[in-house]
């Protein structure tokens, strides 16, 4: 599906994808951000949509197919577009904090799949490993789980997320890219044509 060539919201696109998956049994839907063409048309926008929108749609698509999410959980009528700054799973978890923390040693598969930072493969590994051993944070590190993402949402053998602020309003800010200092130019401004005149005449 072409994204960003008209004003369809992400909710519309994902609902269409969901229909294609469930009713038409398609195996895969591809999303392609509209990209400008050599001969622009009045019917099409000039500017391409941000490439990250396409990426977020793919992430949401994966949540639909492999993680047991429903479209109306990922996009709501209040916010029909996906958050471009954080991924849809993290956005869902931040909006449904009452579900967490999930204990990685006891939580069911459905809940583990909803923990931000845990992928399908790692959930399978956790499920099979915890039959034989009690999992600790070092085990998750070995599975190369992103600790920054996962820590507030889980409890493990040696970890409770008490001080990581699952109740904190600022939790979302922790996952955003760090703010960048905008540049202020304090240098001399470039010379204008009138400057030469004022130098010659001595008048400001």
């Amino acid at each position: 599906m072409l994204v960003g060539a008209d004003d369809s919201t992400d909710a519309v696109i994902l609902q269409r994808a969901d229909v294609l998956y469930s009713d038409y049994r398609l195996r895969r839907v591809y999303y392609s951000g509209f990209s400008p063409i050599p001969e622009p048309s009045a019917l099409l926008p000039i500017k391409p949509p941000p490439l990250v929108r396409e990426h977020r749609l793919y992430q949401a698509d994966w949540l639909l197919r492999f993680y047991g999410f429903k479209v109306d959980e990922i996009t709501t009528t209040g916010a029909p577009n996906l958050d471009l700054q954080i991924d849809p799973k993290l956005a869902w978890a931040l909006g449904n904090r009452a579900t967490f923390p999930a204990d990685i040693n006891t939580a069911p598969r459905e809940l583990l799949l909803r923990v931000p930072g845990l992928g399908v493969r790692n959930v399978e590994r956790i499920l099979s490993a915890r039959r034989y051993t009690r999992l600790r944070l070092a085990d998750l590190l070995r599975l190369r789980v992103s600790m920054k993402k996962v820590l507030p949402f889980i409890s493990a053998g040696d970890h409770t997320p008490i001080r990581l602020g699952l109740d904190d309003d600022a939790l979302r800010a922790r996952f955003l890219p760090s703010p960048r200092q905008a540049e202020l130019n304090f240098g001399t401004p470039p010379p204008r044509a009138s400057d030469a005149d004022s130098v010659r005449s001595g008048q400001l």
Partner: protein
Amino acid sequence: MRTVVIQPCFENWRECARELLARRVPPDDVLWSDTVLEPVLFPSTDDASPRGAVPTVPPAFLDLARRVAAHRDPQRWGALYRVLWRLTHGGERHLLAVATDRDLRQLQQWSKTISRDIHKMHAFVRFRLVGTDEATSREQFVAWFEPEHRIVRLAAGFFVKRFASMDWSILTPNECAHWDGSRLHFSAGVPRTAPTVDTLEDLWRTYYRSIFNPARLKVRAMQSEMPKKYWKNLPEASLIAELIAESRGRVDHMLGTEVRPVRPAPKNAYLDSLRDLNAPPPDISSKNE
């Protein structure tokens, strides 16, 4: 402590490991080496331990071990034997299910590296036409490739299926694979050969140039898919710098181009007749009145 010197291949390691397992030699007592150049620090002691039955392992371990054996890390033989020991005499038959285990994790990471290397070899081998066999009139192709690990045997099956109808050789520094239409065989590696220029390469370069979309330039994503170490053997790599450099200007040009209005429908008698046919039929009930 004993030192086991083996050929760097899976089959040889497997034979030695079976022998050691049957004699119940724990992994801490074995020093594995796949080069004879290293002086043996602790000369091997004569084997007096009785030989028992060779225990069996899950088939998944053999698949894993076959991949890990292709890795270049010198530690791999010892790590493989340690996991093998734990699976059998160590009493951890379920070890392959515990992906968080330190030893197993290491093997799985090596295996993943090998899978990636094989995938890249499938993608980046470029054959060059060198001639035609007069007896069989089959075209003969040669490719030079430098994989990171010893993966030629693991990766060759793909090329047999994909290019069964042509004769080809894939030359690498470690091992070469050859296919003549009926038999796949391997020979020792060769030093880098000067690649001959292929007439089809310009065609391919034109193709790559035309499928490149300047508005979707993602340099870091491209380099993680196509790491720079492969560039020197890819004919299309010479285009990369140029395409990246001019992409900005091409996009600006597209954005700055005058927007054309919606095209009017073409004047074409045939299309008009189709449009008439497609028009809704006149109302029959009104005619009867």
